[in-house]
Structure formats: C-alpha cells, structure tokens
C-alpha cells in the first residue's frame, strides 16, 4: 500500500499539490481526474520519484518496480522495433515479446519505421508497447489515451487493463476521459487546484 500523508508540493510560494491523507491499495486501479493544472501530473511525478514533496511523507514506494508513461514520452531516433526493445530484458524470448507488444497496440507493420516520423497517436502507441515489457508493481500513466483517436482508445484501454491484470500491479493514471476512468479504475480521485476533492 502506498500512503501519502500531509503532502505539500510548492512551486516557489504557490501550492500546486496539497494532500492530507491518500492511500493507494496494492493491486487496485485509480483514475486521477481534474482540469488542467489540477495536480494530476504532479501527483504522478511525485509517485514516480521525479519530484520530492516540499512537506509530508510517502510510504510504501520502496522496492516497488515502476513503469511510468510520461505525458510526452521520448522516442529515440531509431526504428519502432528498437524503441520497443529498449525496455526488454536480454533473453531468448526478447524478439517474440517485442513483437507481441507491438502487435498488442496495433503497430504491426511499423516495425522498421523510424520513430521520429510517427504521428502523435502512433508515438503514444509505441510508448505503451514499450511499457508492456516492463514487469512492474506500480504502473503510472499520464493521460495514456489523450493523443489516440477515438477508435483506438478502446483497444489501448483493453491492453492496459490486460497488462495491469497480468502483473497484479497497482495502476494510477491521469485522464480527462470519464469513460476511461469508469472502465479501468476501481476508484476515481478528483483533484482541483492541487487539492483532493473526493475519493
């Protein structure tokens, strides 16, 4: 279980995240919803260890294997296949696992395509394919379906659900889609101006 207590994240003097007490149970899925600037990304970055709280404590992150999808994932200047393979451990099954991940997000046929020539939605699919190769206990996704077209969202949601289920991982994701929140999450956390509204 991850427990945040009396968390404050300040940028200069401005409070960008303030959480009195928040818990994330193991193996559960949580959707973070709220308007732009409400603190969703800050909370995910805090849980990923990218930023530190100005005040308060986070317990339960020690020893958790992390998979994190930032809002703007970076694509290395190499073909799609190599970009996905970056996340794979060296093993004889490597190639098969990479191909499975590419197929799962509907990017088969793009393996040799240079990643820098992909569209925004295609980049996001490749970024998700890469993540599927990480065996994680804690999965943090920052707006995973935002750049993906409406038809593709259902497929990606199913891939994420399957991945989290197989790993028995805790999923925390930021979204603007209530439909995705209802579909993937056991609980919805609403943030407003950096403060928790309802759980």
């Amino acid at each position, binding site marked *: 279980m991850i427990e945040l207590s009396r968390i404050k994240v300040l940028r200069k003097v401005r409070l960008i995240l303030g959480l009195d007490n928040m818990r994330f149970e193991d193996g559960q899925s949580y959707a973070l919803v709220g308007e732009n600037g409400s603190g969703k990304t800050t909370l995910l*970055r805090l849980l*990923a*260890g*990218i930023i530190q709280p100005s005040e308060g404590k986070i317990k339960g992150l020690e020893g958790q*294997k*992390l*998979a*994190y*999808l*930032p809002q*703007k*994932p*970076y*694509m*290395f*200047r*190499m073909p799609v296949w190599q970009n996905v393979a*970056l*996340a794979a451990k060296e093993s004889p099954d490597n190639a098969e696992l990479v191909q499975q991940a590419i197929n799962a997000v509907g990017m088969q046929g793009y393996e040799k395509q240079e990643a820098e020539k992909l569209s925004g939605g295609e980049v996001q699919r490749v*970024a998700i394919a*890469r*993540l599927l190769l*990480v065996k994680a206990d804690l999965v*943090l996704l920052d707006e995973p379906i935002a750049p993906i077209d409406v038809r593709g969202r259902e497929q990606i949601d199913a891939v994420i659900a399957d991945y989290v289920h197989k790993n028995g991982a805790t999923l925390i994701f930021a979204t603007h889609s209530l439909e995705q929140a209802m579909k993937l999450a056991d609980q919805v956390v609403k943030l407003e101006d950096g403060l928790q509204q309802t759980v």
Partner: protein
Amino acid sequence: MQEVLYQLFGPNPELREIIGLTLVMSVLSTVISAAIGIPLGTWLGLTAFKGKKTWLKVNSTLMGLPPVLVGLLVFLLLSHSGPLGKLSLLFSLPAMVIAQVILISPIITGMTANLIALNANAINETCLGLGIRPGKKLVLVLQDFKRDYLLNILAGFGRSIAEVGAVQMVGGNIQYKTRVMTTAIMMETNMGQFEKALALGLVLLVIAFVVNFAVQSIRPRISND
C-alpha cells in the same frame, strides 16, 4: 586571380604549409574540445544538481572569452617564468592548440548542454519509466544526438579556423612553424602583400563555406519537451 592561383599551386610551398598547419591545428583543437565538451555538455544537460545554473552561467561567460585574454593567460602559463615554462611549449603548435581548446571547449559544452536540456525531461522521465539505467541512458543519448553533436563540433571548428588573437600571441606567427592562415593574412596585409593575403583569405573562405554548408545540411533534433 592568376596571382592567387600561382601562390596556391606555384613552386613555393609556404602557402600550402600554412594551410596544412592551420588544418592540423584546427582539427586537433576541435577534436580535443569535442572530447571535453560533448560528454560534459550532455551530462550538464541531462542532470539536475545544485549549482547547475551557476555552472551554466560560468560556461556561458567562457563562451564569449576574448581570444587575446586567453592568449595572454596561456602565454603567461607557458612562458619561461610561468608554471608550465619547463615544458618549452611557447611558440609551438601545442601552445596554439591549448589556447584554442580553452576557447572552443566552452562553446561545444554550452551548445551541447542547451541542446540536451531541451529534451532532458522527456528523456529522463521515459528512461525512468522503462527502468533504463543511467549508464545505458547516456549511451542512448550519445547515439541519439550524434548528428546534432556534429553540428556543434563543426561550429567549434569554424571558430577555431577563424581565430587569430590567441594563436598570434602564443604561436608567434613563426614561418614554417606556427604561421597559420589568419596570422599570415594579418602579416601579409601589414606588409602590403595583398595577393598573398587574398589567396589565403580565399582558401579560408572556401573552408568556411564548406563547414557552413555541412552545418546547414545537418538537420537538428526538434525538442521533445
């Protein structure tokens, strides 16, 4: 024009030797500066640490160092009474290379740090999210930005080949030893030998054009952040 071609391809090898020495000095200076500036700039761009802003500000200041000041400092360092006087490097090619490395390294470091910083958040967060270790991340970044690094290296080479103040002071413009194109142009102009100065200027212009053409043809990476 005929005189220019005669100076370049005629029986007197001096001009060709000047061009050769200039290229050796510039290539050496640029290679050493790149070996310092590329890894240092990449590390500075990727890593967040206390005092980074100060470091970058100092580097920015060093990017605009007056060549004559560098020349003076290296001169004092290498002169017989200076701390490195025993090496007897003053008025030699190594002295000119040292001065140029001091001038060019901050340029390559600063340009590299700025370039990497544009993409640093996306790279760091992506690598963290995929469990990619820092060593592998550095290798990936070095591979990923090789075209952009070349751009920075060529900019350093351009600065090196056109520099005159520092190499004049520590090289001394000695015939067949430390005379390079820029110092030779200055000398020939002062002596009224305009044909020779023009021939050298023309070669310098061609090299500058080739370097510039190469720089323009390299497509820089667009920021991911």
